[in-house]
Structures are given as C-alpha cells and as structure tokens.
C-alpha cells in the first residue's frame, strides 16, 4: 500500500460515480434512483475537494463549489420526494414502468 494522494481520491470519486450510474440504470423504483443520484453528486464533491487540496491549495474555489452542490442537492432531493409522493397518490406505485402516460 502506498501513501494515498490525488489519484487515490480520483479513483474513489470515479468508482462512486459509476456505482451511481450502475444503480441508475438498473433500478426501476424512484426512491432508489434518487439514492443513485445522491451517490453521483457525492462523487463530484469528492472530486472538487481533492483538486482543491492537491492541485490548487492556494484557493478555496473547490470548497465553494462543494457547498453550493450540497445546497442544490438538498433542494433537488426535497423536490424529488414531493414529486414521488404526489405520483404515489395518483398511481399507487413509484415504479417508473407504471408512470408511462407521456410515452404515447
């Protein structure tokens, strides 16, 4: 095991991103798809912090981007859950296969 550096963090963030993408492709339940999106957003945050720490230590821009992404992710999760609850009320299901009125 070698001393962890920038590339280790970038590997973690890339792996987290593609785990989220895998979940987004395979899941058909809206709540679990939302969880995959949270994983993807988290991987982006890890990326920003890693670059801020190891490549531009003299600036704080990565920290600000991370803070704004966290704020937007919170707003996005709240709106998504409001939509999911509304969908459950009208369809009695939150499976994406059951909400297909706009397809045809």
């Amino acid at each position, binding site marked *: *095991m*070698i*001393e*962890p550096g*920038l*590339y*280790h963090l970038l590997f*973690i963030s*890339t*792996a*987290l991103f593609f*785990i*989220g*993408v*895998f*979940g987004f*492709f*395979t*899941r*058909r*339940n809206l*709540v*679990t798809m*939302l*969880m*995959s999106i*949270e*994983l993807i957003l988290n991987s982006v*945050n890890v990326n920003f*912090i890693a670059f801020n*720490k*190891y*490549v531009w*230590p*003299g*600036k*704080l821009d990565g*920290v*600000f981007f*991370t*803070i704004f992404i*966290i*704020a*937007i*992710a*919170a*707003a*996005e*999760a*709240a*709106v998504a*859950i*409001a*939509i*999911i*609850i*509304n969908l*459950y009320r009208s369809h*009695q299901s*939150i499976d994406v296969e059951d909400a297909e009125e706009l397809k045809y």
Partner: protein
Amino acid sequence: MSGSTIIFYLLAALTLVNALLAVTTRLIFRAAIYLLFSLIGVAGIYFWLQYEFIAAVQIVVYVGGIVVLIIFSIFLTQQAGEKLPEQKLGRKLFSALAAFCGLALVMLQLLKHRFTVSAAAPLEPTVANIGTQMLGVDEYGYSLPFEVVSMLLLAALVGCIVIAASPNPSKEGEQNPNQ
C-alpha cells in the same frame, strides 16, 4: 505504512462497499441504510483531508437531512419488508458493462494525465477564510452565487409545498384507499 494511510484505505473501502450494496440490495430500507454509511464514509474522507467544515456540512445535510427524508418517503410509499422485483439479467449485465467500461476509460485517461500543482502558498480551509470569501463582494467573492442559491432554496421550499400538498383536503380518504 502509517496509521493515516490505513485509515484512508478503511474509509475508502467503507464508502465504496456500502455504495455498491446500496445500489444492489433488493430491500429498499437496507439500501437507505447502506447509503447512510456510504455518505458517512465520504464525510470521513473529508475529515481525513482536514476539510472539517465540509465534513460537518456533509454529515448535517446528507446524513441528517437527505437520508432521513429518503427514509420518510420509503415509509410513505412502500410496504415495509417487501422486496423489490428482480431485474432482468440482460439489463443488469449491460448496465454493469457500461459502468465498468466508463470507469476503465476515465481511469486510463486520468492515469496518463499529470496535474501541475499550483505553487501558491496554501490557504487553510478554516471557517473564517470560507466565510470571508463566501460573503465577499470584491474580486473572487461568492456573494452573488450565495444569494442565487438562497433564492433557489426558497423556490424549492415553495415548490415542494405546492407539489406535495393534497389538491383537495376533504377528499383525502378517497384518494388513498389503501391507507
């Protein structure tokens, strides 16, 4: 090998293993709990990098806010203990293949690239430095995005109430026959 290195690898394993379990388990409540531990692992990585403020924000917003919101929505929309339906093997196989190919492509490009490290004197990410720059109105100040995000949060708040509010409260019982 120092203790710091061991802690880093433990945190990385915690994050990735729990993320993988969160997207593969068929019990939706367990998926939420695995997601919780994955987010805690990411917060641990921020602590390891000595970005304590971001780690605290991560724990407060993600672990304390978003995961609790997800768990509430599971309780509101899902029969407890019911397994999610099994996905088609072909879909799982092709998703795994696409994700793995993407990972391989990005990692190959990353490992070829050399980052030029800036020579500027390091600026400590203390709360005082972050706050001064975030509310600064001079060059490199972030007060305009800060205001825009606060407007976005207000819009999201109002939007959530409008979307999730029952359209006709007197017919609540009719709209949810199975509750």
